[in-house]
């Protein structure tokens, strides 16, 4: 463990430095997003025919594909992020307090990427407001897609509130060390702030966290998003009550991986060994391992039901799934990660941060591929698969792949920009770490004394 004491200066470093590496990463991310925006413009001009999608049935295609797969993936990362942060606050897991804000920011970034995907996926995105909002009071009774959009919006608002509230505390206290050109932003953020509100805010944040945790299984990735698929009876690859829990584990594994990657990047860039300590990474890895285990367990549940004396439609879908190289590869990635995490838990010397990074990347790749395949499989193996053209064909076009690159660029840009405006580690965490330090120092001292 580092002996450095975390300071306000530390957490302000991203705001008050400007490096070549930062510019380079910014440029690359902007380029990625820009490339996709151009591709999207072309799609808007030509129609969705530029994708690899088609009509399932006699049309031999897949109705939804990478856009929806990536949408779910991003929503999962986002929902996992907010659950993580809420758990930290609610259960007082102070060890992880330094990454809580990163998780919240990841939620906002992930939801933005997901929201963007909704637009990209539509045939007529220009009608989103008139057609969807205009009939909301009717469609909300039935359409899982409307629930979806509702929940995503609700969570965006909740997370932004959450983040906004905790930021007021920091911005007010650090105001003098923040750049002046952003003065108007800080003014708005801290409007009406008095130190008396701290206690109230703390309570509000606690209640919000409670709400997030309670609603997680039902409204977030454990409910509404999987219902988009699992409630449809004629697509055996999707139906089933296991999808809710399954989606939730995917969300949590993806989000923890995301937080590991982002925390690592900040740690390297700003010498934050004493803030994002090895201890945090070890802890996150263990949690990742735990959720990987749940993920694989639920995959087994899903696959067993169907491969042993299933009804015809279910058997066909299950056989296709377990025989699919992409599925096997993605399960392999998650299993290998799990094996590594267990091994390093038993033998701590196996832990290293680069390995933690590889684990995070492996899980994110695994969950992305699983989601992509999941979406497509429904169309390839429907109950009514009499058509010669079913199972159809689908492979994402260049434009669809670019969307993934573009949204990753977008999320990186989001962090790069936000880190220049507000501290990505909250002041509370620093205060807390310092308390610990003080505590540790005394224990260390006592130990020494004992030895002596």
């Amino acid at each position, binding site marked *: 463990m580092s002996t450095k004491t975390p300071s306000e200066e530390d957490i302000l470093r991203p705001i008050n430095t400007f490096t070549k590496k930062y510019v380079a990463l910014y440029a690359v991310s902007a380029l990625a997003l820009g490339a996709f925006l151009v591709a999207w413009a072309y799609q808007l001009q030509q129609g969705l025919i530029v994708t690899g999608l088609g009509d399932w049935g006699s049309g*031999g295609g897949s109705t939804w594909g990478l856009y929806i797969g990536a949408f779910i993936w991003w929503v999962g990362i986002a929902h996992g992020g907010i659950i993580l942060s809420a758990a930290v606050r609610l259960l007082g897991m102070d060890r992880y307090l330094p990454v809580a804000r990163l998780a919240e920011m990841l939620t906002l970034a992930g939801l933005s990427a997901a929201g963007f995907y909704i637009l990209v996926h539509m*045939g007529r995105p220009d009608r989103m407001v008139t057609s969807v909002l205009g009939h909301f009071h009717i469609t909300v009774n039935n359409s899982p897609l409307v629930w979806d959009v509702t929940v995503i919006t609700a969570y965006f608002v909740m997370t932004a509130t959450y983040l906004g509230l905790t930021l007021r505390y920091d911005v007010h206290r650090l105001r003098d060390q923040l750049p002046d050109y952003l003065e108007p932003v800080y003014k708005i953020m801290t409007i009406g702030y008095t130190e008396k509100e701290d206690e109230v805010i703390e309570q509000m944040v606690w209640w919000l966290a409670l709400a997030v945790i309670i609603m997680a299984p039902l409204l977030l990735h454990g409910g509404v998003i999987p219902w988009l698929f699992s409630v449809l009876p004629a697509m055996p690859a999707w139906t089933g009550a296991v999808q809710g829990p399954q989606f939730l584990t995917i969300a949590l594994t993806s989000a923890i991986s995301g937080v590991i990657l982002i925390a690592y990047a900040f740690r390297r860039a700003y010498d934050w060994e004493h803030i994002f300590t090895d201890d945090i990474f070890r802890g996150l890895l263990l949690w990742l391992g735990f959720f990987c285990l749940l993920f694989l367990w639920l995959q087994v549940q899903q696959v067993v039901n169907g491969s042993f004396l299933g009804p015809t439609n279910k058997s066909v879908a299950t056989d296709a799934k377990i025989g699919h190289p992409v599925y096997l590869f993605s399960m392999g990635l998650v299993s290998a990660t799990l094996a590594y995490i267990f091994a390093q838990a038993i033998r701590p010397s196996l832990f290293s941060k680069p390995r933690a990074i590889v684990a995070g990347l492996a899980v994110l790749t695994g969950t992305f591929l699983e989601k992509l395949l999941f979406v497509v499989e429904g169309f390839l193996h429907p109950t009514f698969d009499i058509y010669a053209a079913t199972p159809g*064909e689908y492979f994402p076009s260049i434009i669809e792949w670019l969307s993934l690159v573009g949204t990753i660029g977008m999320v990186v840009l989001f962090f790069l920009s936000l880190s220049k405006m507000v501290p990505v580690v909250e002041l509370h965490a620093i205060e807390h770490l310092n308390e610990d330090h003080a505590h540790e120092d005394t224990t260390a001292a006592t130990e020494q004394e004992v030895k002596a």
Partner: protein
Amino acid sequence: MSADDESFHPLGHEAAYEEAKKNAGGFAEMLKSLGGDGEDSRRGVMKKMGAGAAVGIGAWGTTQGGDEPSVSAAEAGGSETTEQGDTQWGMTIDLERCDGCLSCVKACAQENNLDQGVNWMYVLQYEDGGPDSSRNRLVRPCQHCTDAPCEKVCPTTARHTRDKDGLVLTDYDVCIGCRYCQVACPYGVNYFQWDEPDISTEQIEEAHSDTEGHMMTDERGRWVDSRAPRGVMSKCTMCPSRQDGFSGEEKVGTSACEEMCPPDAIQFGDMKRETSDPQRYIDNPARGRALVEMNSSLPSTSGLEENLSGAGSDLESVLEASEDLDEELLTVMKAAEIVTENFGEDDADSVQYEEAILEVFDVLASHGLDLGSQEVLVELELASEPDEDEEFEGADEEAAQEALVDYSGSPSSNFKLLEDIGTNPNVVYFGNEPGPTAHQTETPVAYSDMEADRADGGSIQLVDNRKDVLDEGTVGDFGVSL
């Protein structure tokens, strides 16, 4: 479901009651609907129809989702309505009469100016493990489900059921192209408009310049008919412009596909009306088939008159004198009349067939042959000779029904597609139901052998698998598949 008497309710109880309330003086009708009486002639017929015919059609006319709010009035002030029209357009399709000629597919493409591969109507041949798959065909329009899953999932109300007649339509002006309806449809009847359609709105408008709504907007002023514009969903519409009378009164109650079907395998009409074509077909498919089949062999009235002049008026002489009328044909003609209430009346399409038969009967009657007489009926085996001390009971419906079945065969079974999913489809099939492992093979006529004319004056080859067309527009087609 079994075909026993108790389970056969042409209407479910509640719906039957509603129906009865509507029919002035319809108490008898109601009893009949409830299926509790023993005298009803139709019930006798039902028994005779054999195992298949009464199976699976128990719930006709009932809308199990009748209390589901329909959202089609959404745009008018955004209020829900639970109003249900008196009409429910639908079809029966006799798969055993389909020859797989694809005329209906072509007719639909022409009527709606569809792009290649957009087969709102689709016909397929399939194998199902049985020894003989020559009659395994499926004709697949949209099922216009009463509980349409596509409508339930639509985030915009673009996909809606038209209150007045139960058609499930897409409002092209509201749809955002999320394709969830295509995802939720168990049958795969939706076709998204991935790019600019071949035929422009202007071209369609021009081609139908004197048709109200230009075959695109319906009675309510909503754009729901003909091919979809770019970025929105489309599927079989069951021709709302026709149903709204924009194509002329005579086209109301018809669809492009049924009109062009050479063997008349498709019966389009109001599923809620007992006397509509599909409902008559459901009641008695052997009768429906026989009417179609004998229609082409009916003697012309003038020819018959000529043949008969100078001949005797007894049955034997009449049959001998006429060239195109033999005993079998006459038996079936008479049998059709015997089993039909209000023969030759009403406005169903099949009534034309009945009228043609009645015209022949008129010629025979004026020649002096009494088809209702004991002698003739017994001779034609449509009545049994009474014992000496008994009175003649008139025509025997059971015998008549048997004659019809002998002539045209009775379908092996009838079914609705994926009925257990709870969609309540409004298409009833006669023939074999494809099993869960059935898979498509080649149709007798290839899609590429068919040409459809469109509003731009040109024509296109039909395409079976639309992906072949769409792949051309994919940016970076890797040629592999997940």
